[in-house]
């Protein structure tokens, strides 16, 4: 077998890779357009201390300004220098079956129920995880409620309600 001229480098690695912040910024900008500003998203960056090394954390927060309500819907954590691997925490990744069910699953399949936050090795992986969170039942329900409550409030105050 000849290897001359072949690239062994992984696919999907190119100069177009995105940082975690860029991925979140794209989604935050899109939300403001979709909701006509009723619900927006902001990104908070913090450096957090862990027992191993300082970690950089990005939080994606939904903001319903009219309702004075803010909700953190996901966090992305990664090293200070290295953006990847990045771990994602969100409601939809928190579900745990009861202990008895976990035992049954383990007995039946030999598999331990995963308890660690999912990790993205590349920007593509991270994009997939973020998409999973934004399309989760938890986020869809919350978003729908916040838009509906915001419209109700504007109506009750005699203010203009954004139309589709």
């Amino acid at each position, binding site marked *: 077998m000849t290897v001359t001229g072949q690239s062994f480098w992984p696919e999907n690695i190119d100069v177009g890779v995105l940082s975690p912040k860029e991925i979140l910024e794209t989604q935050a900008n899109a939300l403001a357009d979709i909701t006509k500003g009723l619900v927006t998203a902001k990104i908070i960056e913090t450096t957090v201390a862990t027992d191993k090394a300082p970690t950089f954390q990005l939080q994606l927060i939904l903001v319903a300004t009219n309702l004075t309500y803010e909700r953190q819907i996901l966090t992305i954590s990664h090293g200070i220098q290295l953006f990847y691997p990045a771990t994602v925490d*969100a409601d939809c990744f928190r579900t*745990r079956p009861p202990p008895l069910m*976990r035992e049954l699953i383990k007995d039946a399949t030999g598999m331990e129920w995963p308890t660690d936050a999912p990790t993205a090795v590349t920007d593509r992986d991270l994009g997939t995880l973020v998409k999973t969170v934004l399309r989760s039942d938890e986020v869809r329900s919350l978003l729908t409620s*916040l838009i509906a409550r915001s419209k109700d409030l504007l109506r009750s105050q005699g203010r203009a309600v954004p139309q589709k």
Partner: protein
Amino acid sequence: MISFLFWNLNENAGAVPYVGRLAMTYGVDIFLFAECPKDTAPLITVLNAAFRGVYRVADEVIPEKVRVITRLVPSRLKQRLTLVGKDATIWTLQGDTLPRVLLVAAHLPSKAGGFTPHDQQTVAEQVARGIMSVEDQDECQDTILVGDMNMNPYEPGMAIVTGFHGLMTADLVKLGDRRFKGIDYRRFYNPMWGLYGDRTPGPAGTFYWDAYSPSNHRWHMLDQLLLRPSLVDRLRNVQILAGDGYSPFLGEDGAPDRDKVSDHLSILFQLEI
């Protein structure tokens, strides 16, 4: 002085009348209820029948995991941020003397719900980070953390530097941030240490677990109050309530009467803020 009461009601509507009597006896400004019955209207009815002010549900936009009912005017208590998992909601409170206090109401996952001690520590670390992030954004470390932690004060999530870092004496907390492996960690004072066991007035803990287990302390301190150093000297009172001033919360066996009231006891505390 602002008076707070945290209580896990175990979704027991039978506990509602006791809440009204607590308002009468203790003049509570802010009630924080974990596992609150879904319909809060009966609570508001009994509270307002106590004629100790006009109570309202503060988390009416989106019901939080820990429901908040207050007689303070809306401008004094505002939702600031709800964290992932709804494990904790951070409120901004305008005190009588302090313009801004952060009030964190938490209800963390339990071992009975499938979380291992390691999982619980992970969640505690995430909540601690969320709190610190808001403290940094708001440039305010006048923070109160209260809730059903589903851990005892000595468990890693409550005590480890990367978790809540809750310490048992005011002197330890006043030493300032602790530097560990080159990183500074904020401290919380956890006065519940001092209420654990039978050497102080009141019940020995907030939750009683009567199970046939070889290692079971029976009394557990799952419900806790923690304060940042700046608020330690402002704490005027903290106690576990064994009754509402009229009726006991304990059954004949000395444990919380889970059928009539709740499987948890409530924490009352007052702060000069």
